[in-house]
């Protein structure tokens, strides 16, 4: 209910920002859409579960357990409003999905595409004909062809039945005579049990991850075949992977001068101590010992994937990029829409951080200002009840950029009374 009110409040506020040329996704039918999705998937899952026919009871039980867990997680995502319910956007994505399926003569009955609010540049095949595209993909892709290749890759996973295969393989392995005997043998040992169990587990994990990497390459290959049938620009498969390769790099930052530029108004002063952090004892952070982290990568690196795709394409980059006004409109809104998604998924720290980076270069933007106000209000609330670290990332010397750590220090170090002042300064 609270979310609905917030949405109504925000949509109302956004109506006043027509001069910004930004139209947020129409979310007015969110409750209906959520209920419809929930009913649709409950039915779908019931039907899938009815048809789980495996002769081996132990295997069947494991498979059933995994299916039930993934299905309940998926239904929880629906209930948590993780998926964007915009008829226009969903229709657009469904159109792209249908284009690939039709051109490849694949029965579209069981296929569906959903758009998640997640800002991570990613997409997934759920194994039941459902392709989930994260909104974050729109931040990376630059044309519709690249997006179509993402969807083609996920359809590739579905056609090759990768999810189902993995679950079945896991169940088979768990109930296999060989593993049961090896486990019993280890349990009988007087000494060195844990090391032997660990070695066996590691081997199984490495094999599993090695299989996963092979499946990614297979999905790339089949995805490319499916994609090429759409007669879109083949080069998009390469440019997409090039973008994914650098998608984790932070492209902008916030300096102390930026904080002064943003927050120093109506007498409020940025102090050096807002950014102070005790110097850490530790300068070197090691990787995992006893585990080859390279062997635990679920995806091959993008450079390898690009090389393999290039081989398959045989340098036939003759078709031009597809022009799409629908895509251009979505892309144009994507940065701002992502800020809203982050806010609505309660990633207030990330939403604020990204908004501040945009606001410093566009101080007249009323939407950014409003989002700063909304995020700061939520962060202040969480700071008061000692849950700020649930909504704002942790200070991290190993993984965070200096800019992100500066931002985390700032939010932690300013007092509640300072929050009052700056929130007031951003009040619409």
């Amino acid at each position, binding site marked *: 209910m609270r979310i609905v009110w917030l949405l109504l409040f925000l949509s109302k506020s956004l109506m006043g920002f027509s001069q910004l040329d930004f139209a947020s996704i129409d979310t007015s039918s969110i409750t209906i859409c959520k209920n419809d999705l929930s009913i649709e998937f409950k039915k779908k899952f019931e039907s899938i579960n009815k048809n789980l026919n495996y002769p081996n009871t132990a295997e069947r039980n494991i498979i059933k357990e995994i299916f039930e867990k993934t299905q309940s997680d998926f239904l929880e995502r629906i209930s948590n409003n993780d998926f964007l319910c915009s008829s226009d956007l969903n229709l657009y994505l469904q159109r792209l999905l249908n284009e690939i399926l039709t051109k490849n003569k694949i029965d579209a009955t069981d296929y569906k595409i959903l758009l998640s609010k997640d800002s991570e540049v990613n997409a997934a095949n759920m194994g039941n004909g459902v392709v989930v595209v994260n909104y974050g993909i729109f931040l990376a892709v630059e044309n519709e062809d690249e997006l179509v290749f993402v969807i083609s890759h996920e359809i590739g996973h579905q056609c090759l039945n990768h999810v189902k295969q993995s679950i079945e393989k*896991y169940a088979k*392995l*768990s109930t296999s005579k060989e*593993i049961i005997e090896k*486990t019993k043998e*280890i*349990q009988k040992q007087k*000494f*060195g*049990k*844990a*090391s032997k*169990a*660990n070695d*066996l*587990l*590691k081997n*199984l*994990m490495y094999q*599993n991850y090695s299989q996963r990497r092979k499946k990614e390459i297979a999905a790339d290959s089949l995805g490319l075949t499916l994609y090429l049938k759409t007669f879109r620009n083949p080069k998009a498969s390469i440019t997409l992977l090039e973008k994914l390769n650098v998608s984790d790099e932070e492209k902008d930052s916030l300096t102390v001068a930026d904080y002064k530029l943003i927050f120093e108004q109506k007498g409020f002063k940025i102090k050096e101590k807002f950014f102070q952090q*005790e110097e*850490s*004892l*530790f*300068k*070197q*952070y*090691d990787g*995992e*010992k*006893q*585990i080859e982290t390279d062997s635990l990568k679920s995806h091959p690196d993008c450079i390898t994937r690009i090389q393999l795709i290039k081989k398959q394409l045989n340098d036939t980059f003759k078709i031009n990029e597809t022009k799409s006004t629908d895509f251009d409109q979505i892309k144009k809104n994507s940065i701002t829409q992502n800020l809203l998604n982050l806010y609505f998924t309660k990633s207030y720290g990330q939403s604020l951080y990204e908004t501040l980076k945009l606001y410093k270069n566009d101080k007249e933007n009323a939407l950014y200002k409003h989002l700063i106000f909304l995020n700061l209000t939520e962060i202040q609330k969480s*700071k*008061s009840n*000692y*849950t*700020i*670290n*649930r909504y704002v990332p*942790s*200070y*991290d*010397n*190993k*993984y965070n950029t200096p800019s992100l750590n500066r931002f985390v220090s700032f939010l*932690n*170090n300013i*007092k*509640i009374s300072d929050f009052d002042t700056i929130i007031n300064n951003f009040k619409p």
Partner: protein
Amino acid sequence: MKTKLLFLLLISTLGIQAQITDLQKISRGKLYSSDVIKDSNNNIKGYFFLFETDKISKETYELEYVVLDENLTKVTNGFITEMKYENWAMKAKSIKVEVSLFDNKILIRFNDDFGPNMYEVYKRFRILDLKTNKLSEPFIYNEDKIVLNPPFDRKLKNYDGNESQNMSYYNGVGLIVDSRYNRITKSPNRYLIKLDENFKEVWRTLYEDESNKKRTKVINYLNSDKDVIVMFNHIQKNWMKMLNDFSVLIFDSKNGKLITEFIFPNIKDFAYKVVDVKLTDKELILLGNFSVKSEFGYTNDTDNTGLFSYRLDKFSGKILDKKFLYWEDIGTKMDINAHGKIKEEGYIFVHNMIPLSDGRIIAVCEAFLQQPITTNNMYFLELSKDLKLNQVFEVDKFKNKFPGTSAHSNDIKKNGGFDFMDYHNLGDDEFLFFLNDNEKGSRNRKKSTLYGVVSFSDGKFKSQTLNLKTEVSTISAFPSKKGYITLVENFDQEGKPTEIRLEKINY
């Protein structure tokens, strides 16, 4: 206890994500012990954990150590082999670790852990170099020398050859050996020995000759810097009985020479305990508590007299100033009698005496009863430079009572019986004090989980209670890096991962 609990909760996040349940159960590590890495200003800079990962032969185990930084990010880990004593009659339940920090190195002391109040035996040491994250081979100090890679051996007949003198990093000084166990020195002499980073002896100072059985010095570290090492000396008779005889020994950090022995006044009537020692460029300030002399050689809980402050010249040991506060002179600001008993609350125990930059002192006190052990309200006293009471701040908290128990305050403190947890020095005379405000050992899930935070800022105390009760989880709080508290939230919902949050204290 607090850090152990934290690690029990963290273990689930550190385990290998296994695919096969039975194998995972076998491979899972078991937490042995943990310790916080603190700097000389009492700030938490990191955490050290020790897990048992496998039993590889009789009494021999593979252990994994994990180091986390102040933000709980994993810095390094590694695997070592260690032994612990096990026979049909007696078994060390784990291996305990204690860490001390000096420059960019952590000295880790391991010993077989037989449980609370048991002797710490089979001490051995390793050094973790934080520049390279390399852990040294084990070493002990035995028969007057460092023994690298001592043999793994738990045969009682070989005990003397496998035990170590105690070693620790002293603030501003480095690695010091307190060579006091004559079983392994084969000599009646007790020494403090400074070793350099290559274990070469820099100096040694004789502080006791044990042939004097009737009056033997037992010294314990108080504080140190690059100039002096300050040790509390408590006299023991026949290696058993502690006498009402105390002094403070001040050694020169550079050469180990005894600068002075500070003798407390009127020992025949009073007992003394040094609570904190502040070292400045030129001075040494001894802050503590004194009582009427007791029969058992420690301060008398039920006849507590007051507080003392001695200001000494650091280099000569000359007394520059001395002040006393008698509870009976406190006046109307606090309802405490001449024996240190606070009306309706109990006797006073002094946890810390923290000097401020202008000479004022904050004394952190908790009221308690010895029998049955009961811990009551907390009192924060702001004292003037002359040790006069400026203000008292009382914090009402849960009164923990343990029926059928009895103990001296020193033992209650040692075994974690008090509710005061720790303090953070935030600089500029600002402090945060943390206290537990719950029934200890309570299993009543419905009860609120309360933690008290007392701040001292701009000369004023302020108290807040973190009510960590939620309908869907249980939350535990632990002191953390400067200005923060670590909250560990375990959710009732099955499968929902434990949330570990570092939260900045609002004050």
